[in-house]
């Protein structure tokens, strides 16, 4: 009755709801009379239904945020002046802390020598660690 290409296209468009009323009636009449087209029609109907379900899925929320996240990780490096400024500030900070450390170190030496006179118990903990025979104590089972 219908040629092969025509039937295939008509069947799909029929299930997609794209045919006119007249064409719909013709198709329904044909399906009542033609068993082989009816079998094909069932398969097409199933496929169209599956596609409708799949295409109705919504984009997961916050897509823009996820895209931004990806862009952040590949953003261009900061301009040269910014990088130079950050590096020099870092260097200055490092030098200041080294200088500060050295200063503090020399102060500590003076303080320690002071306390040893005023408070002979000042370095007790350290002296104990040195003098305690730890290994001997641990393995002395007798």
């Amino acid at each position, binding site marked *: 009755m219908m040629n092969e290409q025509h039937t295939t296209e008509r069947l799909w468009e029929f299930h997609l709801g794209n045919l006119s009323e007249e064409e719909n009636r013709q198709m329904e009449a044909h399906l009542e009379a033609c068993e082989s087209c009816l079998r094909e029609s069932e*398969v097409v109907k199933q*496929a169209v239904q599956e596609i409708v*379900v799949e*295409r109705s899925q919504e984009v997961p929320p916050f897509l823009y945020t996820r895209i931004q996240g990806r862009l952040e990780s590949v953003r261009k490096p900061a301009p040269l002046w910014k990088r130079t400024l950050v590096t020099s500030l870092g260097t200055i900070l490092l030098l200041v802390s080294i200088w500060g450390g050295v200063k503090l170190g020399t102060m500590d030496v003076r303080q320690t020598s002071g306390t040893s006179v005023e408070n002979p118990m000042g370095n007790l903990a350290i002296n104990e660690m040195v003098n305690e025979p730890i290994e001997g104590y641990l393995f002395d089972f007798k």
Partner: protein
Amino acid sequence: MDEKQLVIELQAGDEKAFRQLVGKYQQQVFRTAMGFVHDGSEADDIAQEVFVEVFRSVHGFRGEASLSTWIYRMTVNRSLNRLRSRKRKGFFQRIEAFFQDDADWTGEPEADCSIHPEAVVGNQETAQALQQALESLPENQRTAFVLYHYEDMAYKEIATVMNVSLPSVESLIHRARKNLQKKLMNFYKK
């Protein structure tokens, strides 16, 4: 905002314009990707890749095609690439299986050329049958089919996106439908 203005602002690096573009095209990108990969999180991943690519390459956009066509092309390419790498992975997994256990090796180079009812389980039987049937189609048939059935695109638009003639699109969609019917008929017979 019309498309020309949107492109100008995107090229100037305007973040608001980019946000607007994502809002406008996200559903179309996601839906198209779904038609290829049939998996929400993978389609989401493809959508992210597409928009990152848009952001990075919009300065080179000369407007020979519409913004929408340009984005569709990117989505189709990314989706097809994803499927190709999936296939490669499957191939290497089969090689791995061969070295792990000789009995697992079937020796079939393209295991997904037909529908395997044994791989289809539970209530999602028909959905998986359709997915496998779609995946077995040649890329150009699948692309035309997805753009028509998932995106409701007119044949003329599909011809523009795929850069082929109108009769070619008609023929591709017809062959895709015919092949799907054949594969699904075989599946339901079993």
